[in-house]
């Protein structure tokens, strides 16, 4: 079960927003809204493709200017739970520009960073506000979730190769 409370493997953040729940839901699911806030400061989100179905893909491109020039990062994932407007769960992995999953260490991330992480968003309307609980957790290496994920990408990699001349 991924619901363990190993704090070293997850981060939980609670926030309240001065907006109706439907709008906060759109912040996460409508690419135009998502692009407006998702980039960490100094980053832009030129690409956000969401297939809003369970099992549907997500693909996000991030661009930031660093002292070493323009840096691009790509993230891919899968929607696991879509219960509008209360609950959204998706996985996320670093990828290349074609959506092939990359290992975090090959991208310069410190060791211990899980290849696939899971983002859970829970929303609740309270009067004019919306309370949001975000949980971002690592999927332990070798868990069924990760295996399924890797298999899916192996298939994708094979497919991409077969499409090239």
């Amino acid at each position, binding site marked *: 079960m991924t619901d363990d409370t190993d704090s*070293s493997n997850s981060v939980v953040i609670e926030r309240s*927003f*001065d907006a109706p729940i439907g709008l906060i839901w759109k912040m996460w699911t409508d690419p135009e809204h998502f692009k407006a806030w998702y980039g960490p400061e100094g980053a832009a989100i030129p690409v956000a493709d969401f297939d809003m179905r369970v099992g549907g893909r997500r693909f996000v491109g991030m661009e930031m200017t660093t002292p070493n020039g323009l840096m691009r990062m790509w993230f891919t994932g899968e929607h696991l739970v879509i219960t509008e407007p209360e609950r959204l769960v998706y996985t996320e992995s670093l990828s290349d520009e074609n959506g092939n999953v990359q290992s975090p260490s090959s991208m310069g991330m410190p060791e211990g960073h899980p290849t696939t992480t899971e983002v859970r968003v829970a929303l609740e309307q309270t009067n004019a506000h919306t309370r949001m609980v975000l949980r971002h957790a690592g999927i332990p290496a070798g868990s069924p979730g990760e295996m399924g994920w890797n298999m899916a990408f192996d298939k994708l990699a094979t497919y991409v190769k077969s499409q090239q001349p």
Partner: protein
Amino acid sequence: MTVAIDDERLSATFAALASSTRRAILARLAEGAATVNELAEPFDMTLPAISKHIKVLERAGLIRRGHRAQFRPCAIEASRLREVSTWAEQYRSIWESRFDQMDSYLAQIQAPAGREGKP
């Protein structure tokens, strides 16, 4: 804003950690302080090359160096390393900063439209 400063510091720390040589140096220092010569021993590298790595770690606040002029032993800076010790904590400041941006974006799009007609 403090979140932005933290992000910058995290970036410097990540850049410093993105080298297997520097991570190996940190691993060695986790066992105790050491001089540059001692740190250089296991590596097939020149002293200046090792010194360069040490400077990067020092600038990122991951290690500190003693003031004894000749040896200047290096020691690990535990507090800095703890901040980035888990990937999850690394993400906390990123998410907080994103949600600050969501907040201001929400304020912007929910503001009453049409400011041109001042009352």
